[in-house]
Structures are given as C-alpha cells and as structure tokens.
C-alpha cells in the first residue's frame, strides 16, 4: 500500500479549486478498505480512532467529510476524560535529532527494551531534577 498523497486532507472542500490529479488520488486512498491513516511511519486504521471519512467528487471539487463514530467516541470518553495524544503533541513541537540519545545507549534501557519476559526487571525508572531533560531540556 502506498503512502497517502501529500496535502491537508482536512482543509480540502468545495471552496478550494481542485489541484491537478489530487482529488482522484485522494479518493483512491480514502476509499481503500478501512480508511488507513498514515501516522508516524505506519498505517493506523481510522476506525480504531472512531473516525469515518467520506469523499465525493462533484464539478471538479473534492468534498471530504470527516465524522466520528458516536459510540466509539463515547466509550473512549467514558474510559477516561484524558486525551492520550494531546500532551504528546505539545511535547513534540520541538524535536532535535540526537539530543538525549545517550539514554538509548545505556545497558539499562537496552535490556529493559529488548530482554525476554521473566529474565529482566520489567521496571525502568528515570530520576532527574527539574530541567534535566526528562520531559523538557531547558
């Protein structure tokens, strides 16, 4: 399966002129089974997020509607009012490659990450003062 086309799916609408070739490509992608989403290098199923996507073409314009399965959304909210992705997105606005990589090279991390169940301690704790780089480096 190929990666989805570039472009802001959410902002496409009848008020925007259709970019050449974009709408057909977009339609093919969106109408493929289970509406795959491209996130962080892998496909996620839109249905897992309680999301439905409908796409139609008329008069040379792509009309895209994004909906949310009401029940899935209600169940997620019932499980917890905390939205798992929101804080992560806030934290990842400034990403600089290489910073913090020393932690990944530590034996403790490698063992915790890759060791077999039962042969390694399942708990890895990071202690550090404010500003040391646990959540932010500042």
């Amino acid at each position, binding site marked *: 399966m190929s990666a989805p086309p570039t472009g802001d799916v959410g902002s496409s609408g009848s008020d925007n002129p259709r970019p050449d070739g974009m709408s057909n490509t977009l339609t093919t992608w969106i109408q493929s089974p289970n509406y795959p989403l491209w996130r962080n290098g892998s496909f996620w199923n839109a249905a897992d997020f309680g999301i439905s996507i409908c796409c139609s073409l008329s008069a040379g314009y792509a009309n895209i509607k994004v909906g949310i399965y009401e029940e899935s959304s209600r169940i997620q909210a019932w*499980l*917890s009012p905390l939205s798992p992705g929101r804080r992560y997105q806030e934290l990842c606005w400034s990403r600089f490659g290489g910073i913090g990589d020393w932690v990944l090279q530590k034996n403790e991390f490698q063992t915790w990450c890759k060791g077999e169940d039962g042969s390694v301690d399942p708990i890895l704790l990071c202690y*550090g003062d404010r500003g040391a780089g646990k959540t932010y480096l500042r």
Partner: protein
Amino acid sequence: MLTSNGISALVRDTLCRQSPLKNTVILCHYCDYQVQKEQSAVNIIGSLFRQVNWKLPVIQSEIRRVFNESKKRSGKSLQLTDMIQLFVQAISSIRRAYICVDAVDVLLPEDRSELLRALQRIIQEAPNARLFLTTRPHIRPEFVKHFAKEGCVIDVVADQGDIASYVSIKIEYSKHQCPGPVTENLKDDIMKIVPGQALGT
C-alpha cells in the same frame, strides 16, 4: 526560555520505531501539573486503556459490553479495581505492552500513591508488561515503598553535549530568523557560558 522535548518522548518514539516485537503496544501518559486535579489514577489508567482500545478491535467488543452494562447503571465510570482488571485482561492478549508514564512527581500525593499501587498490580498480573517512569528524585522513597524491587535506574542529568547541541541549533535558527547580530565570536561566548548555567546541572 529554551526548551526541547526530553527523554520521555524520545523513549516513546524509539519504542514505536524500533520495537523488536510485532503484536506490541506502546502506551504513554505525560502527567501535567496544569490539569493536576483531573489526573487521578483511574483516569490515567483509563487514558492508557484508550490507547489499547485503538489498537485491538477485539477488546472493543468486551469494552462495549461493559460500557453498555454501565449505561444501565446511569453510566457510571469504572472503579479503579475494575479498570485494572479489564486493562490487564486487554494487554494479556498481546505479546508485550510498554507502559510509559512521565513526570509522576507532579501528581497530587494521594493520586500518585494510588497510581503507583495500580501500576505495581499491573506489573504483577501481566508478565508481558514493561514499565518506564520518570520523576524528580525527591519522591524516590515512595517508589521504593510501592515496588517490591525498585527496578533498573537511570539518573538523568543535563548532558553537556545535549545542551551544546541544542544551543547551537537555536543560534543557527535565530540567525536565519533575524540575520545580523550573532557573530561567530558571540556564538562562541554563548556556547561557553550557557551549557554550564542550564537548570539541570
């Protein structure tokens, strides 16, 4: 203030990218002091559960059943004990679950204590679970108290190389935004002074 995302997000992304096993989930919660009152243990475990739910449609049917039963009882949320039981049941169907909770120290003491007890129970009941926690060191005795073994420990100090890299990147970025005043000599001076004054050192 200069900020860059830290080790928690790095670990999360590394697990996602390099996870050695298929059929693995990476579940993360970043504690936020700005919404401290909402961050009860049951809400945090529920937030982790929401991420399992995304990945495992089979679990959705069991959750839907419990949810529908709950609706008959005026839609009350799950109690922590029931939440843990369902959560353990959910992750037991996968090969490994990485659970990452950042900044545990910012939780209210009673919530923190309850969360640590809940995580301890999850680790005990789900041998395929791995737990990664970050915190300031002043609550280390609480961790020792709640976990039978403290686990492996990494002490995080502001790495001079990281700070130097970060400052250098910011200076270069600023030069593109506002070309002019940052001369190479000034850059050298900043690079000498700022890393040593970072809050984490």
